[in-house]
């Protein structure tokens, strides 16, 4: 393994993120080639966390854009400061050169910064997180293309604003909508799966308040087995952490039993039907099955 990749792995590690080799390799390339990364995977596998860890490790500002249906440029990139524009027009009074006035009020001073413009205009390099891009609509996706390939924003009244420092761009998608080919092709691609047993235990143990030893092992083993059950919402890593914290908050000592797990199960399963399906008996079976049994 190239030393650079190990450095990324260690760096993300110091920021509290357990990066396996595929993740470290892709992040290394994203930094080296200055290309955006598109991260896909089930909910709760730690996609967003990568951007946060990058920002902590590189001590770069995290600029986050949460996508949703109907997200438009005014919320994502920039908006004109209408009050100021209006005041300025009034202050100028009647008469005068109108086209000059128009040029004035559509200058950079009248621009309100939203995340994308912020990422482009920042003096220092930032980490730009475009979270859940699949929730935004196709038009917005098309707008992003310019930013992703040329790292610049076009504002019709003003012209093109190139990035002062190329931001590190991380896009995440939960796959609720098919993304366009054009967008995919501009990014490096990273698929994150649920972590294996060892990695998930490591993640749990890295948490300051997380459990260690046997308890961590039991907790993770149960979660991993639950993921193989027929559930409508499989628990992610975030849920594992919540679940461990819930067990901790309940102040329970000793080994993990089905009854205890059942009490804290709401931290793990977020679907009413799943909670009904996972009876104490079933949890008991899952906990009791041999540790050597294959988990997938």
């Amino acid at each position: 393994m190239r030393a650079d990749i190990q450095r990324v792995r260690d760096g993300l590690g110091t920021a509290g993120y357990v990066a396996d080799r595929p993740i470290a390799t892709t992040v290394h390339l994203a930094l080296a080639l200055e290309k955006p990364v598109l991260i896909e995977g089930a909910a709760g596998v730690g996609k967003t966390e990568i951007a946060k860890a990058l920002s902590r490790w590189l001590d770069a500002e995290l600029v986050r854009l949460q996508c949703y249906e109907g997200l438009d440029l005014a919320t994502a990139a920039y908006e004109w400061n209408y009050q100021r524009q209006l005041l300025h027009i009034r202050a100028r009074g009647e008469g005068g050169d109108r086209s000059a006035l128009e040029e004035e009020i559509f200058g950079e001073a009248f621009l309100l910064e939203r995340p994308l413009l912020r990422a482009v205009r920042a003096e220092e390099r930032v980490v730009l997180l475009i979270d859940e891009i699949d929730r935004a609509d196709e038009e917005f996706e098309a707008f992003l293309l310019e930013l992703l390939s040329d790292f610049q924003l076009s504002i019709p009244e003003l012209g093109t604003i190139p990035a002062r420092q190329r931001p590190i761009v991380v896009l995440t998608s939960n796959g609720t909508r098919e993304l366009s080919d054009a967008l995919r092709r501009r990014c490096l691609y990273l698929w994150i799966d649920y972590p294996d047993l060892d990695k998930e235990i490591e993640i749990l143990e890295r948490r300051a308040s997380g459990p260690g030893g046997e308890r961590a092992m039991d907790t993770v083993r149960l979660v991993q087995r639950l993921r193989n059950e027929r559930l409508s919402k499989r628990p992610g890593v975030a849920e594992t952490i919540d679940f461990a914290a819930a067990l901790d908050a309940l102040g329970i000592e000793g080994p993990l039993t089905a009854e205890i797990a059942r009490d804290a199960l709401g931290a793990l399963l977020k679907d009413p039907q799943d909670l009904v399906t996972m009876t104490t008996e079933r949890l008991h079976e899952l906990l009791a099955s041999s540790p050597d049994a294959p988990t997938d």
Partner: protein
Amino acid sequence: MTESTRSEPALSVERLAELGARLRAEGVGCALTESTAAVAAATRLDPSDPDDARLGLRSVFCATRAELEIFERCFRSWWDDDPERPPQSTVRAEVPAPHATGERARRADRATPVEPDSVGSEAPRQDVIGAAYSPLDRLARRSFGSIAEEELREFDAWLDRLIVRLSARRSRRLRRGGRRGVVDVRRTLRSAARHDGELIRLARRRRRLDPPRLVVLCDVSGSMERYSRFLLRFLLGCGRAAHIQTFAFSTRLTHLTPWLAATELDPALAELRARGWSSGTRIGECLETFVERHGRRMLGQRTLVLILSDGLDQGEVEPLERSMRRIQRGARKVIWLNPLLESSRYAPEARGMRAALPYVDHFHSGHSLDALRDLPGLLRL
């Protein structure tokens, strides 16, 4: 970044181009941009370490999860093909085709080469232009199940006319709406600047009306096939093709949309028939496959799910109930068309149908042209 950029000879441009060509041959799109990025990436990876190269190049060449698997396979054989050998002697038959864009290359494997229907849809439409439409016509009420092969063209022509009428009605509705909407401050101020800051006219904008997304699951087993054909033809004709995801099922689930992009409806269905998929029904398992593979992407609050089936299931009831519950929770509306409803004596007593009904918002027959006419109304959000 200030990283050293040693470039090692082992991953030469030729070698990378060959990997690109192999991937392209497998349907993984490799446009010029990826090849360029691959060359750049290769200089930042350890060329003697197969994992370094594999993981790094994978994130450059692949764009979807499905492509990852193909990449792994291609990479292994490519890597094993003696990297020490001088690149000149590894020239292969699969020379990179210059124009294969990602999208097209990816489609290539879906597009089953079926002969396009020789009977164009234009000709029969011309034949009936002069005919007066009467809703009381016997054709309109004929059950699709009773239509003979020779009559198909006649019915298609009627269907086309029906579609034209229904589409016209829909567009009139969309034109109404008046001058309401939120004020577009940006445009308003622009015009104000031209009038010394006087707000003379408020520019407005209205929310655009997006058509709902539609997921159609059609039972193509035995007796249901004819009904499915007409329903599909009707929906495709309504001009919503871009927003329709179509599936056919009998004992297995098939995603029809990519097929329909490449060929006409009838040849696609004939191909399905030829594969012997018209015998027996396992609704539950098929719906479950749909939920698991496509549910996340296709279901949502703007999605209508339309299921056409007689509900006579040979499979287990449990998966049917489970998947129907998930479909109903994920979708805006669930419409079940059951041609058996045309008989007034029919009561949904089959186990499968009974299990599914609690999760259905609208239960209709859809068995004839007349019955299909109600559909566009139902298909609004």
